[in-house]
């Protein structure tokens, strides 16, 4: 069971204000996690990654285990602590603006 923490605006969009828990079949990667998240909540399609290129939107970051995973290969396995639910996978709106 993977725990996902969404930014406040996306929590509002899916009308779920707590962590999201996901069962990701097979080898859990960023891609697989996001596929499952978007399957569960179709309204999130396009809000985290481009719907066509499936690339992360520029002002979105992925953090876990005190590491920035934003630039990792999206098909690489997620950290074991995320996969087993010890640590959440954070989807974060990047700090920007003045």
């Amino acid at each position, binding site marked *: 069971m993977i725990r996902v923490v969404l930014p406040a605006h996306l929590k509002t969009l899916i009308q779920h204000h707590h962590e999201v828990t996901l069962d990701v079949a097979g080898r859990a990667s960023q891609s697989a996690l996001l596929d499952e998240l978007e399957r569960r909540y179709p309204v999130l*399609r*396009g809000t985290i990654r481009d*719907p066509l290129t499936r690339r992360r939107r520029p002002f*979105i970051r992925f953090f876990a285990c005190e590491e920035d995973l934003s630039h990792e290969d999206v098909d690489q396995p997620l950290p074991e602590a995320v996969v087993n639910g010890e640590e959440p996978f954070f989807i974060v709106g*990047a700090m920007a603006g003045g």
Partner: protein
Amino acid sequence: MAGVRVLVGTRKGAFILTADGTRTSWDVKGPFFAGWEMYHLKGSPVDPQRIYASQTSGWFGQVIQRSDDGGETWAPVGNGFTYDGVPGTHQWYDGTPHPWEFARVWHLEPSLDDPDTVLAGVEDAALFRSSDGGATWSELSGLRGHGSGPFWQPGAGGMCLHTIIVSPRDPRRIFVAISAAGAFRSDDAGVTWRPINRGLRSQGIPDEDAEVGHCVHRIALHPSNPDVLYMQKHWDVMRSNDAGDSWFEVSGNLPSDFGFVIDVHAHEPETVYVLPITSDSVHYPPEGKLRVYRSRSGGNDWEPLTKGLPQSHCYVDVLRDAMAVDSLDECGVYFGTTGGQVYASRDGGDSWEAIVRDLPAVLSVEVQTLA
């Protein structure tokens, strides 16, 4: 009793103001979608309870929201805006080719006869249509594909398709306007398009009367005479008597012919409203006086309307989608400012009052006249 519902899109959420037919007391609801940029909200002329809204964010992209109960509740619908085929390129600010990239929906135009059909004008400039209440969207790609698309350039606010008007006489006739490409018309429900910019002159482009490249800010018409178009261009207020085939200037005695909004009185086809802004580099009213100008002769002769509007130290802007009229017996006129006020006139512009203040910067104002 008849009433009015004002839909206000702002930089940080949407607000809905309602009043009965006297328009003396206003109920303000919101913010809806707090924290998101709400570029535009517009109700269906067929079913006023059906409202579409463009919710957008630099972080999270585009969401389209729909209400079926007059804005009480909302549900996200489709946000799949995919350009038809290979998107190609337009010109970037420096004149180099730049790939077409979807950024946001600027304007939603519900159909005149079907509540499930709605047009969307987007950045980078293109026109999309949904026939299923916003669930899915298809590009009307004849607009970008008619030939001049590779020469379009963005204006300072991005290359946006911001104006959509469906002719009430013939729904196959559609007008759109793009910054900074110009005005375009389709006579076959959006399949084929042609530029309608003859008579426009823009000093900010190399060939000042070029076929495309003009920064049109807004177009308006009166339903009783849809061949007469009024345009607020970057500079110049323009008029066409032949559905855009040719244009002539009607700026007349305006203190500045730069501005964004333009609209037409609900019952007087030759009564037009603009709100002059100082210049393209000074985006506030001339002399710090917030003045709507009204022409009762279809342009050229303009009178300032100031009663109830601040006449000193006013440095707000009024953006292109932020003026609208109602169609009660005595026409109401409304506009919103980047300072967060929405002003309304119950008497065709003779006097004004702020019906709400201190909102986030207003991006759009639409009005529904309710039976």
